[in-house]
């Protein structure tokens, strides 16, 4: 199987381009999709190739963007509606929550709404508290929606294809942190089924369930934890709805310890659901209380975001906590006060990719 080095953005564009090519029901529209600015530069070049019939800008109307997507989906198309920031989905909430999510229910299972709603989120926009929240926690609570949180470029490509051809409304929430981090991505087109977690790294001592920025941190930690004698298993759920509870529980049954890390807000967040699943079905397997890592404050503007984002050190501390090593936890808390801000290497690449120099 031949592969090509791509970041997440390019991998998604690759999948979208193939679908625009093969299926005339597919249309892509939203905020600044023609230039590619809107989605943090995912779709650069698609408008030039497919024209305004298939790829077009909309007014800055997030409610309109989502609702016309619902209408197109009901009208037999496969729309990809796009916002420039997940934060703005508040204005799309009615279309997604009150209408798209209920089409199947209202019609007693007869009709469906195959809308794909894509929006970037998370650290990297440097635009403050209204531009870089991640919104998965807001929508995971809505029955009838599916929720994809890809991290690796290869996953994003396969999940994007599944999302567009899926008959349900799918929220495809992409991270900024892996937008330009090149990875080997298969050249051919493929679909990755929803609800199947990926074991990003095998380990035996502690399970870390993480996606997007938190997953980047977890993967960065694997080797240094191993050097300290802690074997970390990293699980990337890839989709939150449906959630691969069985896959997560299987891992926890092996390790007996659980950390859930994400960029979304902590209280009532996705980690709560995952931890509840584990404590309900695999309480007997747990050797220690599960630990959460999540964003605990709104994100300030510009470079200050780096001081508030969840850090590699936060995930590391959580692993020590899950391991139950109180001395090491206390010691590491002291160390954390001294260490400079720790950012995954992809951050700088991301800014460079976007033409921003720090």
């Amino acid at each position, binding site marked *: 199987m031949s592969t090509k080095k791509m970041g997440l953005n390019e991998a998604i564009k690759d999948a979208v381009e193939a679908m625009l090519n093969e299926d005339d029901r597919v249309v892509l529209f939203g905020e600044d999709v023609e230039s590619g600015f809107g989605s943090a530069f995912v779709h650069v070049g698609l408008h030039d190739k497919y024209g305004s*019939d298939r790829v077009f800008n*909309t*007014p800055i*109307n997030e*409610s*309109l963007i989502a*609702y*016309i*997507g*619902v*209408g*197109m*989906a*009901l*009208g*037999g*198309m496969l*729309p990809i509606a796009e916002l420039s920031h997940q934060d703005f989905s508040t204005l799309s909430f*009615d*279309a997604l929550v*009150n*209408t798209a999510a*209920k*089409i*199947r*229910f*209202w*019609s*007693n*299972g*007869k*009709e*469906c709404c195959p809308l794909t709603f894509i929006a970037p989120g998370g650290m990297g926009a440097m635009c403050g508290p209204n531009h870089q929240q991640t919104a998965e926690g807001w929508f995971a609570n809505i*029955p*009838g929606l*599916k929720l994809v949180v890809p991290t690796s470029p290869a996953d994003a490509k396969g999940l994007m294809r599944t999302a567009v051809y*899926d*008959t*349900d409304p799918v929220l495809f929430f992409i991270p900024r942190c892996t937008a330009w981090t090149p990875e080997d991505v298969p050249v051919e087109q493929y679909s990755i089924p929803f*609800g199947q977690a990926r074991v990003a790294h095998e380990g035996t001592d502690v399970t870390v369930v993480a996606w997007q920025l938190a997953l980047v941190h977890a993967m960065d930690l694997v080797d240094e934890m191993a050097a300290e004698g802690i074997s970390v298993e990293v699980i990337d759920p890839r989709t939150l709805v*449906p*959630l*691969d*509870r*069985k896959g997560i529980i299987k891992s926890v049954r092996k390790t007996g310890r659980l950390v859930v890390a994400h960029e979304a807000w902590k209280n009532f967040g996705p980690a709560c*659901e995952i931890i*509840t*699943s584990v404590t*309900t079905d695999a309480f007997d397997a747990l050797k220690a209380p599960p630990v959460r890592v999540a964003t605990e404050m709104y994100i300030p503007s510009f470079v200050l975001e780096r001081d508030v984002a969840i850090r590699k050190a936060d995930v590391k501390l959580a692993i020590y906590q899950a391991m139950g090593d109180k001395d090491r936890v206390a010691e590491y808390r002291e160390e954390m006060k001294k260490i400079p801000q720790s950012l995954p290497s992809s951050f700088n690449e991301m800014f460079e990719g976007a033409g921003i120099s720090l």
Partner: protein
Amino acid sequence: MKYPKEELISMYRAMLTSRLFDEELIYRNSQGQLEGMIHLTLNQEAFSAALVHSLRPEDSYLHSHRCRPLHLIRIPIRVTLAEMVGLRSGWNGGIGGEPHTFCLEKNILPHTGSLGGGASMCAGYAYAMKRRRPGSAVVQLMGDGQFNQGMVHEALHWTAIMKLPMVYVVENNKWAMTTPDSQFKSGDNIADRARACGLETVVVDGQDILACREVADVALDRARTQCLPSFIEVKTYRAGGHFSGDTMFYANKELHEENLKKFPDPIPKYEAVLIENKVVTHEELKKIKDEVKKEMHEITEDVYQESLKLENRPTREDIVGRLDKLWSMPMEGLLA
């Protein structure tokens, strides 16, 4: 007259069916026989009865709360009523209820729960129709209450930008549930606001079914042949409450009476036209009334009898836990 005799009579029958259906429902609802959120079209029947005759099967529509003639076409009336009162034999198994009954195979779109978004949804649907079913039109009806939503203006604007085969209709009936228009409209300027969004607009007397018909025909043809959106403001007045059982205790009585005079009942008004133009005789009109009344009585009685048997209602087990009514399957094992 411009339209053939059969069509003139059919338009009369559509108004009458709407009125007598509503009256049967008001009575049965007051007797505790048929329960549901029953929104009434009283005094507003003319426009949608006309529209029923302008529409072709391939045209799509999203109904409002007050366009009963449209609720009673394409799906058998008894099936629609069964849906309204939550019976298994309803079009959507009794799940949707009155405003949310929809049927894509017959080109009836779903009414959104919160108001306003339907205008944008229809715009997206019209975009799909422009590409996938050229030559067909999409119509959305709404009240002047819904028209205030920001999303409506976004949608109007976008259909004008994109040149979509869309007809927006506002039934300007001076009420938004229990709020009078003095509290939600700054002047009676609905068509002006639509024009500002770039649409061709027309204002029509909602008590005159023939005027309504001409306006609807032109707008639909404009959508079908030129792929351009239009906006129709229908001046009318809501004679009854928001729903069956609402006595309008909140209304200013003098103003209410004044408006009822200003917007007289469209049915006798049209009867006079039909008689004057020798389309029908008084005897023929009476015969039609008797037929429709009998038909509406039989349908509502039939559905009432059906509703008395519990086995005709969806059970908790039919709904709770039925994940296949929320998502495409398989989702088993993936949810808690």
